[in-house]
């Protein structure tokens, strides 16, 4: 799996990215969602993850879960309308997986979408990488 790090944050080529710094990996009709390296880095040490269960409904653009780090609660957003097929139960006991391996063992949910056309609105890795680079440059002036 190819990855690149033109900014401080790792971006993988094999998946798409949304405006909320989440990644979406497509496998036939199943979509896996996680947070990016940028999200885990800016959140700091993640202490708790709240996720929906299998069968729960996702509403596009609405929170489907949340994470807590340093008394701060951040939201996780549904990239599309759909139904949750699986949630990463390991995160209940090991929320640190989000920091350690956000693109792998730290995946959040797998879902089927009501309509697959939402992927057209996602960014490819190169576009997301450029966004991060811009963020980095803006931050450091």
């Amino acid at each position, binding site marked *: 799996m190819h990855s690149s790090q033109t900014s401080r944050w790792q971006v993988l080529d094999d998946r798409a990215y949304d405006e909320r710094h989440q990644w979406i990996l497509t496998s036939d009709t199943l979509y896996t969602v996680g947070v990016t390296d940028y999200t885990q*880095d*800016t*959140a*700091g*040490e993640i*202490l*708790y993850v*709240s996720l929906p269960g299998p069968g729960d409904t996702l509403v596009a653009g609405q929170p489907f879960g*949340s994470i*807590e*780090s*340093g*008394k*701060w*609660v*951040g*939201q996780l957003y549904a990239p599309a309308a759909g139904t949750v097929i699986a949630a990463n139960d390991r995160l209940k006991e090991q*929320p*640190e997986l989000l920091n350690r391996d956000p693109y792998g063992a730290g995946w959040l949910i797998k879902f089927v979408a009501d309509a697959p056309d939402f992927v057209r609105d996602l960014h490819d890795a190169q576009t997301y990488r450029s966004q991060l680079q811009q963020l980095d440059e*803006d*931050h450091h002036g």
Partner: protein
Amino acid sequence: MIPVYPIGAVDWLTTQTLYHGIAELGEEAVVLCWPTSPYVSLGCHQDGDEFDPSSKLPALRRRVGGSLVYLDDQQVFFQVILNPSRFPDVRRPMDWYRLALNPVVNYLADLGLRAELNPPADILVNGRKVSGNAGGQIDDRMVIVGNLLLDFPRDMMVQARYAPHPRLKEAFATSLDEHLMTLRQLVSDTLTPTAVMEGLTRHFADAFSGQVMPAPWDRWSATLAVVGQELQDPEWLRAPGMRLPFHQIKVREGVYLRMPRVSPKDPRASIVAEVHTDEDAIHRLWGLETWHTTLSLPLTRKCLEEKPGPKALKSLLNTLLGAHRQAQEAPLAT
């Protein structure tokens, strides 16, 4: 320009629905208020069982972080609701806390107090907490909320917090006395919530180019009513949440009381440790009477390894020191 609303006394539920509702409405604001009667607020991800209903206090669960707090009319609340697109350089929780809490630190300096932000979100004076804070994202707004303690009835706080053994409540009372401080103790017995609110209003208005204005209750009231029901919904309020391998009460940032999750018949069931996570050390221990052993404090992990003693006890203390990293709310990287 950010509106600053020095609201003052409102009913207990409104002190919490205000910042949730303003964020949901997509507005920005700094709100200053306090509740007319006591209540308990649980953190968004806290285990619902950590509230002790025998305290008979009304309770809700907020949507920002942190743990259970007892709140009353001797605490002045500040609630900062911001649009993140106007602060592109502020990304990390620690940065948001710093942005929102600097006016509070500056107000305390006006009172002659050398206050410091203790990451992530406590404000300390002379090493003791005078202000507890929490934050998060509500809809598309960044929200930082907290309070300044004018007075603090520690027995009420202790009563509101569930403990599996009375020893944990006793330890909590002792630790609160040691680690908390109030403005009345530090400044003057005559300091009033109104005076504190006026001082904070000036500093928040300066910091955010704010305009002081009356609260637009007509615009807010319908949303606040809905939010109030949601925050008290029994299923939301009693929901399970973060559950550590030990019972834990946070006293202030970096200082935790921990008690093992073992059977009540286990001789270790009544042990309580006050753990200072930044030093990786136990500073106080309760419940060692039956072990006929003495341990010099503070007790670091290294001391524990080197010192002879009952294996079961040492193993337990090592666990309470926080082998499980999720027990610690470590300072965030900046």
